[in-house]
């Protein structure tokens, strides 16, 4: 569903149609109860969007018509990009907000069981590695690691924290591999049977196909 919706957003040529899509996606997010979550996740992109608008309105080489110092062509170019980016991010954040991590593991498992295994191992390793990161940082600080303004000192601090974590995690990876080996891991044993698509999934795919078709028709009529 997300792939079809992303395809629809990438083919839209005008900022007006993109703005209409943005409003539609936000209304959809509101009705499905994830509006706040999506907006919260979008917030870190605000500085990037502002930088896009400022840089292109001031310095885009295509600027020919100006309002004070702001070029019209560059502003419209940046506006189109910003609207497209917002639509893409809303679709992807909607997907993230409504799908629990184990569903992604199942998806990777469907593509290839080894991929599913890599993702599940990553999800198992990551919290341990974060804990190890905090512990190593505390140990190095106790040993006198100073976070100064000098770049070489910060680089040394980076090395002092990262190298033990990497060595530890590679060691851990070998132990994990030994466990898998001893348990006789083979993807042929854990391959899941393909589940038939649920009714709700079929409806979602149908709706996104309608969304794609509507955007293609509007884009076609525009020209």
């Amino acid at each position, binding site marked *: 569903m997300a792939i079809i919706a992303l395809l629809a957003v990438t083919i839209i040529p005008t900022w007006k149609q993109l703005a209409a899509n943005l409003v539609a996606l936000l209304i959809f997010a509101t009705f499905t109860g994830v509006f706040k979550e999506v907006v919260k996740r979008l917030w870190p992109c605000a500085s990037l969007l502002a930088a896009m608008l400022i840089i292109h309105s001031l310095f885009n*080489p295509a600027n020919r018509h100006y309002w004070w110092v702001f070029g019209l062509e560059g502003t419209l170019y940046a506006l189109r990009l910003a609207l497209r980016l917002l639509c893409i991010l809303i679709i992807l954040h909607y997907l*993230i907000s409504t799908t629990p991590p184990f569903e992604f593991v199942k998806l990777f498992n469907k593509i290839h069981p080894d991929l599913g295994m*890599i993702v599940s191992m990553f999800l198992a390793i990551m919290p341990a590695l974060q804990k190890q990161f905090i512990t190593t940082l505390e140990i190095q600080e106790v040993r006198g690691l100073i976070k100064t303004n000098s770049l070489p000192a910060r680089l040394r601090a980076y090395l002092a924290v990262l*190298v033990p974590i990497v060595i530890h995690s590679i060691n851990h990876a070998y132990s994990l591999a*030994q466990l898998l080996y001893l348990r006789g891991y083979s993807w042929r044993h854990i391959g899941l049977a393909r589940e038939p698509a649920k009714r709700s999934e079929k409806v979602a795919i149908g709706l996104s196909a309608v969304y794609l078709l509507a955007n293609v028709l509007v884009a076609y009529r525009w020209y």
Partner: protein
Amino acid sequence: MNKPVKLAIISTGIAINIIGSMVSSTVKLPIFLDSIGTMLAAVLLGPWPGALTGLLGNIIQGVLTDPASIPFGVVNAVIGLVVGYLSLKRGFEDYVTPLLAGLILAILCPVVGTPIAVYLFGGVTGGGVDILYAIFLKKEMGIFTSAFLARIPANLVDKLLSAYMVMLVIRKFPPAMKMKRASV
């Protein structure tokens, strides 16, 4: 035993990429250093598992936290391929190979990453590189050329440092682990 080792190191490489960038922001370094896990996996396992580490890393990070990083998985995959091939040909414990890797990647990463960045973000990164990008745009160099040229210095520093860090880590491996590495 080969396959479980590969799977475990790929997943660890993905986690190291994320931790690497976390440590970098904790000690306030002005560069990303988020491809150390990819390079390490490429050195330990070869080019294709290295590329898989890079690609999967960005996809997983995108799916879990930051969707904007998904398209740049291709750039990370290229890093895995280049480092993997260099490591196969020359090893990765001398001083010259990381230099070669850094120089090649400083050009190759912007070649692959710039079209994606221009299509999605108009060439803007939201970081310090944008000042250089704005200067090149002001000189009427064109969006693609400006975005490409602005990325080269940052990539050069980032990839050279990452490559030398991987070399340091490989050198610091205990002898027993070096034996295991040779047997993968």
